[in-house]
């Protein structure tokens, strides 16, 4: 230990006071020579002879100094610094080679780092709050979700736990949703609001910058209406003025008093603009069917998660299970918030993305290794000279590796720039498509990304340089020097180079198959033969505030009038209202078919359901297959009706006429009305575009019979450009109620693009990886074949002088390259078949074994491989034997 400290101290002394140590050594050696001279003079020698003899005896002051230096602790650092300087010099000496190595490393490191940054943003970040690791979420493992953790509990469970628990500083429920907001005399706007029960801000440990948060009781029915503003809203709508407290903001038409302002950037779980108390009506809590609420709590200091879980389980067990009658229904428990929020494990898709990036890096490193091997033989002369002058083998290897690390470092800088751009792009895509990302997702470059990039750089640098360096250093110095400066001759295409090329071709084959599948998937998305039309359709959202439209009748009547006005707009062909647009909803429920009996609650089938108004299928030009679609007659009080989609009809009424049959939602819920099927319609992605099948069982109910909340989407098919009708649509709404905001106004095409961004953007990422791989692999193949051909110029000259014809020589060079490509392709296709299955998740209606893609990739790789070998091969055949033989 003491010795270690000593060495460390010496290291610093030597590093930072290098000149002092050197001076001391100098002085000491001068003194030794002086002492020796004195001795010899005393023994009777003349002063000059004595001094000469003393110098001889010491054995050369410089050599002694060099030997002392090499045992000093700072020596290694000094050596590395010298190597780095030398590396930079070499970099400048061979600019083309250096540049290509830097670019190659930059591409590989950049793509890998970008993927890591993305994964870090999703999986490795935490809540940006004080003591965030103590924040827990309540919920249960839901067997209906495949045992996934559902981070929500019923209102009854929440109220019970909140009252009796002692392990948390508090428990608070929250949710978020869109609201209509009117500030002062501005027009109505649509914003995302957080609904927090009192105490939620405190569990997150975030204090307002102004005023206060919610007090207990402010969530009770009849409490004074209050609102807490987000920083951005305060800044933009109240000019950041301090007298905002006590001012009035209308939310859904109802006046609320501003009581506080939250700090900039605060949001939970997304980035909400304002917060309202989550209205909790204790009297409604008796029914377990009440919707589930996400609940958070903060563990008390000194309480472990285990203790909390035990208490939550004990308390919750006193209430009925989340689903009464279902004996297997799980008990409530608590998880750390981020454990509940992060998906378990790395989804196959992200693994594939990481794999693709690693593949590009692998190809990049192989390319660099091959370039270095080529240069190694050219530099073997220089290395041999240094070895002959006494450089040890380890010294030569270190120096060569450090040189490459210098290049890799430059590549890393480039790569980080690339990664920053890629991450910026993906953040903007996510924000554009999904609104603001969750508050814990942060995709920027941070310390971990830098650390990762540094690690990857080191790994790639050493991996690609070690073998070439060892090979160079082990070359027999005498042999090389005798070889007339030609370098290690006979080096055609080493076995190592060949193996690298095979690996490169195989890996790029896998990546190309991946991107080929992606391209097909994207083309399908673009031209998707959707069962409905997206052309010339304008869509928008509109929400009727409960205060102004308190009854179902009032809402239905306004919706009916709106529909008439929309249909009457000149240039409009059809119009409809529905709760959601095609492909953007995922609601499912248990159902009961009339005449069927079900033994257990879990035996009831499930189906997707959606609320649509009259003219929905006409507007989206989807053919009604049997029966009719909804019309103005399907109103409240009339016969409750439904439309079944094809899958629903096939599963439940197979072979029989579906129209006229009845079913009802719920598990034997006698309060639900039986719905009579009046028509069968095509499958229309009722589970969203995310589902590959596009065809879950599903049914539709009429808007006027649904007890609609008043938040609907309108869709209007125009004869020409739908967006040209924007002002007419606005005018129609204004004529009904000027306080209603129209939001998310866009064409159906852009709506579909938004819904499918995931496929498109991540598909694009794979295409980038594939093209990068193809580019790098073809450059690598070209480089190796061309290098080997050049080295064989001498041999070719002899062959030609002996009468070989040009085409024979071309074949000679081509044969080797072609063999490598074929082997690489065979390995690559086999690997790709295995990997393609993981990509299934993000493939839109494409078979992961698509023969067109596999065939296309094989053909194009073979073609590129052929070109990469043919160019150098044909060059060699045109070589002039006289020049080739004379060249050396």
């Amino acid at each position: 230990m003491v010795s270690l400290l000593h060495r460390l101290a010496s290291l610093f002394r030597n590093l930072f006071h290098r000149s002092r140590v050197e001076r001391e050594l100098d002085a000491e050696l001068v003194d030794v020579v002086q002492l020796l001279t004195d001795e010899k003079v005393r023994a009777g020698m003349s002063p000059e002879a004595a001094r000469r003899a003393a110098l001889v005896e010491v054995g050369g002051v410089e050599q002694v100094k060099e030997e002392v230096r090499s045992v000093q602790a700072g020596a290694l650092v000094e050596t590395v610094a010298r190597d780095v300087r030398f590396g930079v010099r070499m970099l400048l000496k061979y600019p083309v080679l250096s540049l290509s190595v830097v670019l190659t490393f930059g591409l590989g490191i950049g793509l890998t780092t970008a993927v890591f940054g993305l994964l870090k943003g999703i999986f490795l970040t935490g809540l940006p709050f004080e003591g965030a690791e103590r924040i827990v979420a309540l919920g249960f493992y839901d067997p209906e979700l495949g045992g996934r953790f559902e981070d929500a509990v019923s209102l009854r469970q929440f109220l019970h736990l909140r009252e009796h628990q002692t392990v948390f500083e508090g428990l608070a429920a929250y949710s978020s949703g869109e609201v209509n907001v009117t500030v002062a005399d501005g027009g109505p706007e649509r914003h995302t609001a957080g609904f927090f029960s009192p105490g939620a801000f405190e569990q997150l440990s975030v204090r307002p910058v102004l005023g206060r948060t919610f007090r207990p009781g402010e969530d009770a029915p009849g409490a004074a209406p209050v609102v807490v503003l987000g920083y951005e809203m305060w800044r933009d709508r109240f000019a950041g003025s301090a007298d905002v407290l006590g001012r009035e903001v209308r939310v859904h038409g109802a006046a609320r008093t501003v009581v506080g302002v939250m700090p900039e950037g605060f949001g939970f779980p997304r980035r909400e603009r304002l917060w309202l108390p989550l209205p909790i009506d204790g009297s409604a809590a008796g029914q377990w069917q009440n919707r589930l609420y996400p609940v958070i709590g903060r563990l008390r200091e000194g309480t472990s998660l285990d203790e909390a879980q035990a208490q939550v389980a004990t308390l919750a067990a006193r209430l009925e299970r989340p689903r009464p009658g279902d004996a297997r229904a799980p008990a409530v428990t608590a998880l750390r918030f981020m454990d509940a929020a992060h998906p378990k494990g790395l989804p196959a898709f992200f693994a594939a993305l990481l794999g693709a990036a690693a593949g590009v890096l692998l190809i990049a490193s192989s390319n660099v290794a091959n370039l270095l091997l080529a240069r190694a033989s050219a530099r073997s002369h220089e290395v041999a000279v240094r070895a002959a002058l006494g450089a040890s083998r380890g010294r030569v290897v270190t120096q060569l590796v450090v040189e490459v690390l210098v290049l890799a470092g430059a590549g890393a800088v480039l790569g980080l720039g690339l990664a920053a751009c890629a991450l910026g792009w993906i953040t903007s895509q996510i924000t554009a498509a999904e609104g603001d990302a969750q508050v814990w997702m942060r995709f920027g470059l941070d310390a971990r990304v830098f650390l990762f990039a540094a690690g990857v750089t080191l790994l790639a640098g050493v991996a690609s340089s070690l073998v070439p360096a060892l090979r160079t250093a082990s070359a027999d110095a005498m042999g090389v020097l005798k070889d007339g400066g030609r370098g290690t001759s006979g080096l055609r295409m080493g076995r190592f180079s060949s193996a690298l090329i095979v690996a490169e071709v195989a890996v790029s084959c896998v990546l190309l198959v991946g991107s080929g599948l992606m391209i097909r998937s994207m083309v399908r998305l673009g031209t998707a033969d959707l069962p409905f039309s997206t052309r010339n359709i304008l869509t928008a959202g509109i929400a009727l505030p409960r205060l102004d439209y308190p009854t179902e009748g009032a809402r239905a009547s306004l919706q009916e009038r709106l529909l008439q006005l929309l249909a009457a707009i000149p240039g409009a062909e059809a119009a409809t209202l529905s709760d959601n647009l095609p492909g953007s909803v995922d609601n499912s429920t248990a159902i009961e078919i009339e005449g069927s009996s079900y033994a257990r609650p879990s035996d009831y089938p499930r189906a997707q359901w959606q609320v649509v108004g009259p003219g929905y299928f006409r507007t989206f030009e989807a053919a009604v297959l049997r029966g009719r679609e909804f019309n103005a007659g399907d109103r409240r009080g009339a016969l409750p009706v439904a439309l079944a989609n094809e899958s629903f009809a096939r599963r439940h009424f197979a072979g029989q006429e579906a129209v006229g049959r009845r079913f009802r939602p719920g598990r034997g819920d006698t309060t639900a009305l039986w719905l009579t099927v009046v028509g069968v319609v095509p499958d229309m992605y009722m589970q969203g575009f995310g589902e590959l099948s596009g065809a879950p069982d599903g049914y539709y109910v009429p808007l006027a019979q649904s007890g609609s909340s008043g938040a609907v989407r309108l869709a209007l098919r125009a004869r020409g450009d739908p967006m040209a009708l924007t002002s007419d649509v606005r005018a129609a709404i204004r004529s009904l109620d000027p306080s209603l905001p129209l939001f998310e106004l866009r064409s159906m095409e852009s709506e579909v693009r938004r819904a499918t961004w995931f496929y498109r953007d991540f598909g694009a990422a794979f295409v980038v990886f594939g093209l990068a791989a193809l580019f790098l692999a073809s450059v690598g193949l070209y480089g190796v074949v061309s290098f080997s051909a050049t080295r064989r110029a001498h041999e070719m000259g002899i062959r030609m002088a002996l009468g070989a014809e040009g085409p024979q020589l071309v074949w000679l060079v081509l044969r080797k390259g072609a063999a490598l490509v074929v082997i690489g392709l065979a390995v690559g296709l086999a690997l790709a078949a295995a990997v393609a299955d993981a990509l299934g998740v993000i493939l839109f209606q494409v078979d992961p074994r698509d023969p067109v893609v596999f065939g296309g990739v094989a053909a194009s790789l073979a073609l590129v491989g052929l070109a990469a070998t043919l160019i150098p091969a044909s060059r060699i055949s045109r070589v002039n034997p006289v020049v080739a033989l004379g060249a050396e």
Partner: protein
Amino acid sequence: MAPKPAGPPQGTLDLLILKSLSLGELHGLGIARRVEQLSRDAFHVRAGSLFPALYRMEEAGYLASEWGESANNRRAKYYRLTALGRRRLETETEEWGRVTQAIALVLRTT
């Protein structure tokens, strides 16, 4: 003519330096002379081996050094053993005893 004195056997230089300093502090040349004297001129220590060893051992904490005056008023750097160096001398001496015994045993039996 007597055979030219050789350097000490590999790995023994440290032990010889430690031993020569066990009686008191010496400057570099003094150490070389002391080794020659103690080994009855069997070993000759080259400056090229001595100084690297001295610097290495000083860094390891076995030796300490300071500038002083030699017997005839020349400036010189004097080395002495540290406590760590003394312990090192003991263990190395023991070790050396074991090695020589073992070698002797091997040589006797063959």
